[in-house]
């Protein structure tokens, strides 16, 4: 169990952030499940701080134009396009 109870409002807030439409029965089901799952994740609080030296390197390349998809190929999987562009919903 997580220290703070998960409430339906939390699930609705996260769904809104993640841009997923949920009906009320889904909100209810996820609320109950997330209590258990997040409770299980709470164990991570016991993990000590660890000294680590990540062996990371930058792999930048020069910003040069390279061959890429044709406009036709790029648009091929879109449900709607117009004048060689993707067509999306209105912005607001």
């Amino acid at each position: 169990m997580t220290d703070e109870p998960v409430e339906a409002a939390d699930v609705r807030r996260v769904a809104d952030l993640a841009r997923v439409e949920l009906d009320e029965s889904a909100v209810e089901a996820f609320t109950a499940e997330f209590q258990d799952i997040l409770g299980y994740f709470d164990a991570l609080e016991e993990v000590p701080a660890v000294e680590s030296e990540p062996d990371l390197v930058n792999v930048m390349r020069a910003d040069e134009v390279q061959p890429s998809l044709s406009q036709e190929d790029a648009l091929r999987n879109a449900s709607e396009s117009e004048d060689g562009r993707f067509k999306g919903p209105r912005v607001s």
Partner: protein
Amino acid sequence: MSLNAFITRTEIEGETEGPLADTTVAVKDNISTEGVRTTCGSEMLEEYVPPYDATVVSRLKAAGATIVGKTNMDEFGMGTTTETSAFGPTRNPVDEDHVPGGSSGGSAAAVKNGDADVALGSDTGGSIRCPAAFTGTVGIKPTYGLVSRYGLVAYANSLEQIGPIASTVREAAELLSVIAGPDEHDGTTREAGAAVDYAAVADGDVEGLTIGIPTELVEGSEPGVRERFEAGLETLREQGARTVEVDLPSVEYAVAAYYVIAMSEASSNLARFDGVRYGVSGGFEGDWNEAFAKSRSDGFGEEVIRRILLGTFALSEGYHDKYYKQAQEARSWVKQDFDAAFEEADVLATPTMPVLPPKLGESLDDPLQMYRIDANTVPVNLANLPAISVPVGEHEGLPVGFQLIGPAFGEEQIIRAGSALE
């Protein structure tokens, strides 16, 4: 009855000559194939046809392979049974009432059933090794950076690798040699291990090898699994290997850390599915956010939505430090533990899965229970190490897998040791 191993049957001919000429390969359906739909087991991408090949697919073609189909999988790789596919579950060829494991269940089932000589899967937390164990085949999860992920539809980039599934260690190793090596399209690939002939080391020579047994990852297994695992160890000892116990205290936290990291990366990666450039369209009613949310609730299945929501939660303000940051600490700790274990042993051994393959439908109800059965496989992905699953017989007619874990770019050691079990 059909196993439902394939989502799309096809025939893509490779070059006429090469190491895989006359070899048929099945490819997991999250690996892009030019002109052949690549669904990721999701309704979201039911009609998506990639305009380019993944690097591994180009390499298969150049090696002369014939690709015979795109295999069924848990939606976007999220599952351990291949039951979350929008195209229905795959059945286990060994016993059709049972799951083949996941998420590369279609690839393992295709190989076991003889529908393809070898197959490609992808492994984010065990998705190659689990189905290999559950179907009695061999699966290799390569070291992170050995195989290009270009053209793999991303789920959790920092964890996943493409790898082979085959009937024998040698065949899996041959396929690994073809796909391994750096790629200019994937900046995380490395030079190490590129030019190795992995099949040549499948010689079964384990004389003098030290095998570490992490007790934490053995004790949780079902008795039948444990029995087969112990028999496998005995086989290796008889051939001159030595076994020692090693301690991995961090693995207690590995499953929680793995899921927090994987879900967080998934929530970010899957944000691209808005139904505009590809995928299920949310239509043109309402504003962008409403159309976007509709597209996603129509196109994604329950497990995918569950993980996106939990990942968004773990990254959200007020929770980031508690979940995501702590998961990264756990990940560093797991790496450190493995480093220490490899001071004492050349390779480590565990049962691949702590359980036998569940019956179809048996395990879907409780997601948390499902996540816990990945206990032996996820630490390997957190530490970016290579691991192989090799069959070690059956219990009650169901296959058991033996996992060997190597140090980074230590594929040769685990292939050699794995071949000694055959």
